[in-house]
């Protein structure tokens, strides 16, 4: 099993993050834990044609922040106001 997943934004930006972080998203978690498994080359590569790079970046940051928070490091997660709506919709999509 690979330890990282690759998330690709609509502009083609590739974010390689830890598997554990990605699984903060229930949607990604469901996918990664599906029966049957995936072939090595294609495993854990997901393209999000509807998510911009900025948002996807923020989301990845959120994943890591969430992990740390659950481990006791209770800091604030800052969201730039102009990103709020898109971030919320992306979060809904990703079930985060």
């Amino acid at each position, binding site marked *: 099993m690979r330890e990282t997943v690759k998330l690709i934004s609509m502009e083609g930006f590739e974010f390689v993050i830890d598997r554990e972080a990605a699984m903060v998203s229930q949607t990604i978690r469901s996918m990664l834990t599906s029966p049957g498994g995936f*072939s090595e080359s294609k495993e854990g590569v997901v393209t999000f044609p509807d998510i911009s790079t900025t948002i996807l970046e923020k989301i990845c940051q959120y994943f890591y922040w969430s992990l740390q928070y659950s481990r006791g490091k209770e800091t604030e997660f800052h969201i730039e106001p102009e990103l709020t709506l898109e971030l919320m*919709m992306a979060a809904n999509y990703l079930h985060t």
Partner: protein
Amino acid sequence: SLSFKMERKTIDLDQGWDYMQTGITKLKRILEGLPEPQFDSEQYMMLYTTIYNMCTQKPPHDYSQQLYDKYREAFEEYIHSTVLPALREKHDEYMLRELVKRWSNHKVMVRWLSRFFYYLDRYFIARRSLPPLNEVGLTCFRDLVYNELHSKVKDAVIALVDKEREGEQIDRALLKNVLDIYVEIGMGQMERYEEDFESFMLLDSASYYSRKASSWIQEDSCPDYMLKSEECLKKERERVAHYLHSSSEPKLVEKVQHELLVVYANQLLEKEHSGCRALLRDDKVDDLSRMYRLYHKIVKGLEPVANIFKQHVTAEGNALVQQAEDTATNHAANTASVQEQVLIRKVIELHDKYMVYVVECFQNHTLFHKALKEAFEIFCNKTVAGSSSAELLATFCDNILKKGGSEKLSDEAIEDTLEKVVKLLAYISDKDLFAEFYRKKLARRLLFDRSANDDHERSILTKLKQQCGGQFTSKMEGMVTDLTLARENQNSFEEYLGNNPAANPGIDLTVTVLTTGFWPSYKSFDINLPAEMVKCVEVFKGFYETKTKHRKLTWIYSLGTCHLNGKFDTKPIELVVSTYQAAVLLLFNTTDKLSYTDILTQLNLSHEDLVRLLHSLSCARYKILLKEPSTKTVSQSDSFEFNSKFTDRMRRIKIPLPPVDERKKVVEDVDKDRRYAIDAAIVRIMKSRKVLGHQQLVSECVEQLSRMFKPDIKAIKKRMEDLITRDYLERDKENPNMFRYLA
């Protein structure tokens, strides 16, 4: 970056569904085992996203409802086109395998599709209160496949179960998988399993074992039948463990037990040569243990077994009693009494033997303790050759406790026997009769120094106290204490004599002072004592008055012992005799020859007593007196002379008096005490109840007195009448069956 919403193009329902259909088709190909690569993450996300988009589009392009319906239709289509046909063309075991495969596939399909369609589960179903996706998927299978096939499947499964019962190998894992479907399809409830499978399986099992039982009960012995039953139950439990649902175990076991053990209980237990009775007779401990194990779990199953046990023990006990009775009628008195003692030993052995059965075969179950108790209560109260069991038991104790009785036995063995004797007492209803006999014999042991071991005497009293309460043993304990005090008293007496040379009895005198209440009652005649003895009595009286003026001394000469020096021609011999015998002999110090009448007049004894005395001195082993005529018995016309020619190789001889039969007196005394006890019980009951019906009064009376004896109903009625004449009770005027307490 640009807004998320603006980037998205609206997906048309048909368009979107076409895309989903490709995913569904791919999934079906994978399930069918066709060459089809697995989903990759991109494909997965695309399918998820398609649904997501179609559900989050603005109306009228929000297709949640339609997608929900199409989700269900996807299953329905697949089931109708592929699954059902595949199942319908197969039968029996093949069908079962196909079903297991199809169910497994279906679950996989539900898992995948519900993930793709997951967004519907998040908001849509809650908003419309609809069943979630997982449930929709499973319900499809239930409604279309399960409902059509469950009956056929159930038949196939039961056929395999019966095959296995007949000894054939079957695929247990397959059955487990099939039955798991019944459980899972219930979606949290066991109803489907219970109604569509279990109930039929139980019926079939019952009928299977009913057939087997009906032939086995004819062919097999009881032990063999039980072995088979035990084996069947074991196998059925294994069956449950391997492939039935655990909740079936108690139900299945109950059915099997019923057919094998309940239906034929009577025939099995009563089998003539191998049934319960025969097993008891032949000491088949293992088989009886098995019988217990099998019937223990059945409601009221043990009752007939306990009953047969009780009957068996009773029969054995009765046989022992009969044996003793027969021996007694056929043999001389001596052997008879030995036989009676043997009887007690045998009864103890019988008790030991069957107590082991109760503890080991029957696992200490109360029913069997009760059966043993009731059995013993039946035969332990039978009379043997005129002796009640109470008397036999008291005599048995006397034999153990007296000198020369059981010196061969170790202390431990004696303790053990005493323990067992006391236990037997529990079964005897006339405990007060035992107490009285015991007391009489204890008195003799104590007064004539015939007790073998003080510790044993105390030990049995302790045991009796534990079993029957303090009141039972208080008098006996008093007797033992009296003896200790008597010794001290004797020391004081000797000191007194030392200080008062004027008060000299002239002979060595030992007096034992007894507390009247503790000791059995003794008759004492006003025998005319010889002068020497009269002096002794007065001297002691003088001494005793220095100690206390408030007590009256009554002399029981019949219990005294005298040591006389017989000055015979050949050599002097010391004679150890009773006081009465001494009184007779001393008459011959002044006169050589005396007639019966002379002696009678001089001593003032009854004929009965005198005949006994003279017989012991002239017709028994030691002829101290010569009787004329020298017949074997004493008659009132005889005359007696001192036998100066008497001699013996010993220097001291004991001339025993044959013991008076105390039985009659004991029974009389006990009857008297019982009358008082019944009176007291009636008054006690009426005082607290004030008014009571006849039947109730009688039954309460019986219950209160049962600890000591079984009161005769007639006796109770008689006492009641007596109490009425003495104004303790009265009959109610209107209802003569009601009694009222008179304060």
